[in-house]
């Protein structure tokens, strides 16, 4: 088994993909001199140390990083940053040390930033004393990270991977230049919003954000956003987005794709109703492969603008039909220690649920509970979501929210994968609707109807 070498620690790439991980493949690159990266006079002053040592180190790192991937200039950043580093532990001590130097030096990011969800939600998770103790030991530097982040310009309580949702408000516009980390947020901002960001390593995201500049290569360029794959979806019924995304990620690894055959399922394009679908599809491409951008005909902004002209001349084609999706699903390993055991928890939402997903799952569960005459869920079940999305859902749907709460379902705001990866929780048999959680942890992925049956009856339906 090639995964979980870190006991399921967050951030592991379980597929061990040979890729640049920037979202722009360099398969045919040849050795040669690094390109010259031309700086503006203002940037040159920073590079020469005239604006202080911290900024000088920051720009030197960013320039060298950009040169390695072919950048010839830097660009000013727009909108606001988003950072993936949301856990304070000894494993990220060097970053904490550098970030503290930046903060103590009075530096701030170019705009207030958001970050991924914290590992734990001690208020809303039914954690045992043992779980709490273990989690606090692993994430022993959370307070330090939060204090440093706030000094560097983080928005208070802005911890969610779905930062682009309107309730969180870090929503870039078409064409905005970004230097984000967090693969699912990168994918959504590139694909659904038409903003431009490479898949940045933690560390580079912060240095770019301090400078307000990023090296121009890959997904920041017109050429880098052209599709090398035509994904030909041949299905009559709306497919699970997690399966479509998984199939694409496994096939294209980190290439850009142009998907056809999906617009009939997503009328209205990128809107509140379709946001959750596009978010989950993209997150699955990013976690099952290393995809930073997809275009979807008739749906996503660059596909609407350019149509098939955004395909490279020598594109390849991948057909997805029912048979292919069944083949992909059959490859998912069962990583539960007790493989035939009954599931112990249901995790819904990774990336964090959208407003529409909270409503849809509520209706699904309430319908099934009422049909079965049940008043309490048969298995601990969680909707993972940003607290302001949960507040919006509760405000606009008070009856639904009341029923869901009365069944015993809670809405924690932490990262389900990190909770799943603590040694205590990681040993449990967890069922999830998230392909990303499946990829990074020992949780098993199931379809919505099987999960609904599980939530109501405490067991999976036959043949799930």
């Amino acid at each position, binding site marked *: 088994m090639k995964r979980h*070498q870190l006991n399921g620690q967050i951030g*592991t790439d379980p597929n061990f993909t040979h890729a640049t*991980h920037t979202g722009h493949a360099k398969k045919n690159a*040849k050795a*040669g001199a690094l390109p010259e990266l031309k700086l503006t006079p203002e940037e040159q002053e920073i590079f020469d140390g005239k604006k202080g040592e911290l900024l000088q180190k920051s720009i030197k790192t960013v320039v060298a990083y950009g040169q390695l991937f072919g950048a010839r200039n830097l660009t000013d950043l727009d909108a606001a940053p988003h950072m993936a580093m949301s856990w304070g532990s000894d*494993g990220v001590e*060097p970053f904490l040390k*550098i970030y503290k130097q930046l903060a103590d030096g009075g530096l701030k990011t170019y705009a207030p930033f958001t970050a991924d969800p914290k590992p734990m939600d001690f208020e809303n998770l039914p954690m045992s004393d043992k779980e709490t103790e273990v989690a606090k030991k692993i994430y022993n530097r959370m307070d330090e990270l939060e204090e440093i982040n706030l000094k560097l310009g983080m928005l208070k309580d802005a911890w969610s991977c779905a930062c682009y949702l309107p309730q969180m408000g870090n929503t870039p516009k078409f064409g905005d230049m970004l230097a984000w980390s967090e693969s699912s947020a990168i994918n959504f901002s590139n694909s659904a919003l038409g903003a431009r960001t490479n898949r940045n390593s933690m560390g580079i995201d912060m240095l770019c954000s301090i400078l307000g500049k990023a090296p121009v290569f890959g997904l920041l360029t017109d050429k880098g956003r052209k599709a090398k794959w035509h994904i030909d979806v041949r299905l009559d019924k709306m497919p699970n987005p997690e399966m479509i995304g998984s199939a694409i990620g496994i096939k294209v690894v980190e290439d850009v794709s142009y998907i056809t055959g999906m617009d009939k399922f997503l009328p209205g394009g990128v809107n509140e109703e379709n946001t959750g679908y596009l978010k989950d599809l993209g997150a699955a491409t990013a976690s099952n492969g290393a995809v930073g951008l997809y275009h979807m005909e008739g749906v996503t902004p660059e596909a609407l603008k350019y149509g098939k002209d955004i395909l490279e001349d020598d594109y390849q084609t991948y057909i997805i039909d029912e048979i292919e999706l069944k083949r992909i699903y059959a490859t998912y390993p069962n990583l539960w220690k007790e493989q035939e055991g009954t599931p112990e928890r249901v995790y819904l939402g990774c990336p964090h649920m959208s407003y529409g997903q909270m409503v849809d799952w509520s209706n699904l569960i309430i319908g099934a509970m009422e049909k079965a005459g049940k008043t309490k869920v048969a298995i601990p079940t969680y909707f993972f979501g940003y607290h302001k999305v949960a507040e919006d859902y509760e405000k606009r749907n008070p009856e639904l929210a009341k029923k869901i709460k009365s069944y015993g379902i809670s809405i924690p705001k932490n990262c389900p994968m990190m909770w799943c990866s603590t040694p205590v929780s990681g040993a449990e048999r967890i069922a999830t609707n998230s392909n990303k959680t499946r990829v990074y942890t020992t949780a098993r992925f199931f379809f919505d109807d099987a999960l609904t049956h599980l939530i109501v009856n405490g067991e999976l339906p036959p043949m799930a």
Partner: protein
Amino acid sequence: MGKIFKGRTALSGNFEGSAEVSHYGFNTAATYIDVIIGGSDSGVCMDHDNPDLFKHDLNGKVLCIPQTVGSSSAATLFMIILQKNIAPAAMLFANHIDSLAACGVLMGDNWLDKRIITVDLLGEDFLKSVKTGDKIKISEDGTIEIN
């Protein structure tokens, strides 16, 4: 004279040392798992899924690999092993360097003032030619000589 390869210099330097070769993607986090979790001061590879390097001491060696793979926290790990002085002296990539390794070695170079000499794009033939224990001479211009 041994076999010569020419790569692209990411972080330059002159060095002569002994090769440690992996034909598998180098999983930085799994290699240094004991450093991250147990606070170990050893540069020995603990990635049991890497039969080429498992239990090999990489400290001060010339690490020859296709690319790095695995945890997105890898950049911080490079900095930790540099701080502890247990890092390889050089990393030679057959493929294009990946963003995780690039961030790690560059931040180490710029923020800790500690360098892992790094050369990439050496090609598949390089990994077919080099063997663990070979003497490697690295020149500042990215020329690699295997003896």
